[in-house]
């Protein structure tokens, strides 16, 4: 049946501990749902008490005396060979206790083997006396130490007694009406439902979840970011190329060849295919010149730019490599303003921890037009972040190799009570844009953020591995809410 609502038969209810007494939660999703809260025929109250009782061995001692006393009594004046004594029913236990009480002594050198003698004239069997007290219901008069000692010797035990106090309930009746569990097609056909009584539903229970598949939480957030960009008129860039040449990933962005980001420690280089083979050669020459000699009003970096370094294939470290390809493509046509976005994977050969993986999703927005200003960048960011439900923004000067000016975007996080970095942004350097062939006077503003970080903050996830990758907690995926960023 599996349904949660129908209550148990009313007559049983009174004889079972109520759900309150069991301490169960009302919202548990379980087949045997908590009983109804409706008027009851009888009410039961559970009470419990504790009592000390003798174990069967304890009862025997009350009757026969303790093992040690029985050993003492069985030793005649001339003593008893130890081997004989051990054959007695109380022999083993009784002997060691009697010895430790110093009631008996052992003569190992007696004729015919070790022999036991009485060591005192008479003994007082206090164990038996204490147990007798318990039998008379006066266990409380024993000291706790004694009780524990006897309990340890398995002569006493503590018994919990549960009782139910039964009273007439508010719906008490001496006639039994059988209540129907639920409506049936027959009842509807016959109209019998009009005269029947139905068991009350327990609305405190939860329903049965529908069977369904689920979308991944991070990708639900990705869908929302796509939606926001599309609402803002941004065109999606083709980022389905994880493998990129150093040329497009770094050189085209005016990132010098000795830059630490181009180190083995930070970037995954490829062994196979190790090098890119095809470049737009005119453009490549202009890139080489801007790095090594400068130009377009720039001094350049003044170093020996090497094609071999630019050829090296890598796993792209940012989607800005694709933005560079798109801007270069844009520059090859008659200029028309453009707004681009992408959300896709990027790769860093970094040290991994609870918030960093070797691959993550980068969100990027780019606007290219004549005369764009810092104010335009900030205004665009304000609109973008407002759609994410983030209204309080602050901008911090920062450094990126390929943007100038650069600004980090901070938002005030109510939960953490502090300003947290939510993105990075800037105006692409002329050293990047002019060699592509974009007209002078065209500015390109851009910003980026990771998809994982806002998702982790949104869903309160502390370890990124619970969100991304195969170690994901599928229960979390099953239970995930809608992604409503501005809610």
């Amino acid at each position, binding site marked *: 049946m599996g349904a949660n609502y129908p209550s148990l038969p009313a007559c049983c209810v009174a004889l079972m501990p109520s759900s309150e007494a069991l301490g169960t939660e009302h919202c548990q999703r379980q087949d045997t749902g908590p009983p109804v809260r409706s008027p009851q025929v009888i009410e039961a109250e559970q009470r419990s008490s504790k009592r000390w009782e003798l174990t069967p061995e304890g009862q025997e001692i009350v009757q026969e005396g303790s093992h040690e006393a029985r050993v003492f009594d069985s030793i005649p004046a001339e003593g008893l060979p130890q081997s004989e004594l051990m054959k007695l029913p109380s022999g083993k236990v009784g002997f060691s206790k009697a010895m430790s009480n110093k009631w008996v002594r052992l003569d190992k050198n007696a004729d015919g083997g070790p022999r036991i003698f009485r060591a005192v004239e008479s003994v007082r069997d206090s164990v038996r006396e204490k147990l007798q007290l318990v039998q008379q219901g006066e266990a409380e008069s024993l000291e706790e130490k004694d009780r524990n000692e006897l309990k340890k010797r398995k002569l006493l035990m503590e018994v919990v007694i549960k009782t139910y106090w039964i009273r007439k309930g508010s719906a008490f009746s001496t006639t039994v009406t059988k209540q129907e569990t639920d409506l049936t097609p027959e009842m509807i056909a016959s109209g019998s439902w009009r005269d029947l009584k139905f068991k009350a539903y327990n609305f405190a229970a939860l329903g049965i979840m529908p069977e369904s598949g*689920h979308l991944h939480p991070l990708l639900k957030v990705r869908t929302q970011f796509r939606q926001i960009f599309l609402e803002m008129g941004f065109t999606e860039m083709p980022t389905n190329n994880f493998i990129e040449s150093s040329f497009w990933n770094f050189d085209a962005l005016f990132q010098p060849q*000795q830059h630490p980001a181009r180190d083995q420690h930070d970037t995954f280089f490829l062994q196979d295919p190790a090098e890119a083979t095809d470049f737009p050669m005119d453009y490549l020459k202009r890139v080489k010149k801007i790095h090594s000699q400068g130009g377009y009003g720039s001094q350049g970096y003044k170093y020996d730019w090497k094609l071999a370094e630019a050829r090296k294939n890598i796993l792209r470290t940012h989607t800005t490599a694709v933005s560079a390809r798109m801007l270069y493509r844009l520059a090859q046509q008659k200029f028309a303003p453009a707004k681009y976005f992408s959300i896709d994977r990027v790769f860093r050969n970094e040290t991994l921890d609870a918030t960093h993986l070797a691959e993550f999703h980068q969100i990027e927005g780019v606007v290219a037009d004549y005369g764009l200003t810092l104010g335009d960048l900030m205004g665009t960011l304000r609109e973008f972040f407002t759609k994410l439900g983030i209204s309080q923004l602050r901008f911090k000067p920062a450094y990126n190799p390929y943007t100038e000016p650069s*600004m980090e975007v901070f938002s005030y996080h109510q939960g953490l009570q502090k300003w947290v970095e939510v993105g990075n942004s800037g105006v692409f350097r002329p050293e990047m844009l002019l060699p592509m062939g974009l007209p002078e006077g065209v500015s390109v503003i851009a910003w980026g953020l990771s998809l994982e970080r806002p998702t982790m903050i949104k869903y309160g996830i502390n370890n990124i591995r619970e969100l991304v990758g195969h170690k994901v907690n599928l229960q979390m995926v099953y239970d995930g809410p809608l992604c409503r960023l501005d809610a």
Partner: protein
Amino acid sequence: MPTVSVKQELLFQALGRRYTDEEFDELCFEFGLELDEITSEKDIISKEQGDGKAEGASDIILYKIDVPANRYDLLCLEGLVRGLQVFKERIKAPRYKRIMPANGDVQRLIITEETAQVRPHAVAAVLRNITFSKDRYDSFIDLQEKLHQNICRKRALVAIGTHDLDTISGPFTYTARPPSEIRFKPLNQSKEYTASEILDLYRTDSQLKHYLHIIENKPLYPVIYDSNGVVLSMPPIINGDHTKISINTRNVFVECTATDITKAKIVLDILVTMFSEYCEKQFIVEAAEVTYLNGKTCIYPILTLMSCFSETPSSLAKLLTRMCLKSHVTGNGNNIEIEIPPTRADIIHACDIIEDAAIAYGYNNIQMTIPKTYTIANQFPLNKLTELLRQDLAAAGFTEALTFALCSQEDIADKLGVDICSTKAVHIANPKTAEFQVARTSLLPGLLKTIAANKKMPLPLKLFEISDIVVKDSTKDVGARNQRNLCAIYYNKNPGFEFIHGLLDRVMQLLSVPPSKESGYLIKAAEDSAFFPGRCAEILAKGQSIGKLGVLHPDVITKFELTMPCSALEIKIEPFL
């Protein structure tokens, strides 16, 4: 981003006022710095090595400040204070000057041609009549270390040597010799060693061992001698003990040897501009002359203004001055002349100046506007299709997984019963662990690993993923391309092939592809080492093979640490665009 740690007390003393932590944090934010951490030496040691070790360590408060990677002039207390004071208009930006010594006796450094093979460049300068204190000395050493780690690229591009000029006599010779011929007492050692012995000596040194590789395999090692044959340094490894500077040193000879002359000039400029503050004549640096054997002579440090830019209107000038860029309006008032001090090697284009003007104005004072750029948005067709399919796969009862694009060779080859050579996989040259050896050529391993990590979940487990795999492709400029795959898997006590087959039928229905031989799709028996023999079929559609489905081979199930039967489907979706 480099981090500079400064003593709070010294910082406030130099700034001439106290700040609360919040006030100082705010100032940093405005200027583009980040107050990363407030700590003490004691805190640092106890955090790194446990409380026991921290006993007796100093509990003077330290500010750890993150500095933008291009602002080498902010890497020490002196530079930070100077930058902030000028920014707040409390002092004027200093003007740095190079002078020739009064007696005309300029220090000379001669570069021999042997250096060309190992480390061809050198620059030098003199800090005359400097007054160190313990803190100043520490800062001087610290700045050299910071420069070495950052702009000098761990000494590979530039190495700095600073020497007590009163212990040596010029002219100096920068040359390169076979290691066996170089012999001197290295800094803080008690006896002389040959160059080879020195390298052995530092092989276990936690700091210096990282620099040995720069010269180790060269036939000649760089070395600087004075006119009496005293070794100043063997760059980029170690200085000689003879010339070491102390708190009492009055005259410092600075040399930088380099493989990149531009960077060497910048490093020298930064070091001498920062510490000329403590010279008798503040901000004045004594020149040194570098002579190449061909007779070419250069005077260092450069220190002259790197360049002048002209920009339009006027209040900008004041803003720029606040960023240490001395500016004034010229001519008819439409131009500003801006001097770039030697400390600001980061400025190479007018746009760098514009940023400084914006910072001085205050980013957060800029009026926000919305660009009037009018564009029509388009989705990337492949992503659009992916988004639509994802929704309907979830509606079909399958749950979406998100697995890594990188994995081990084993995942895509051994565990699926195929040879790595036959996978067309892209190989990574420098993976730190086996998890990042290759880019995946199939989504299946990721889904199987997801199930392995979720064995506690109730059965059946029905998962899918639509994402990119990567394969080598010689027709592409980079020799590889992504391919968008759809993979789904059914894991239960029975193989459930019919469910996976049904899902394929549903996907085809969604794509409006009917089951037919001619214009639709069909499946036909196939062999694949990942699947149980006789339980695998190839999927044909759009006139090509688009993937396979079937019951996984028990070996595959076992290798992914699973125990139940399992069926799977993997197809490429680009043919359906």
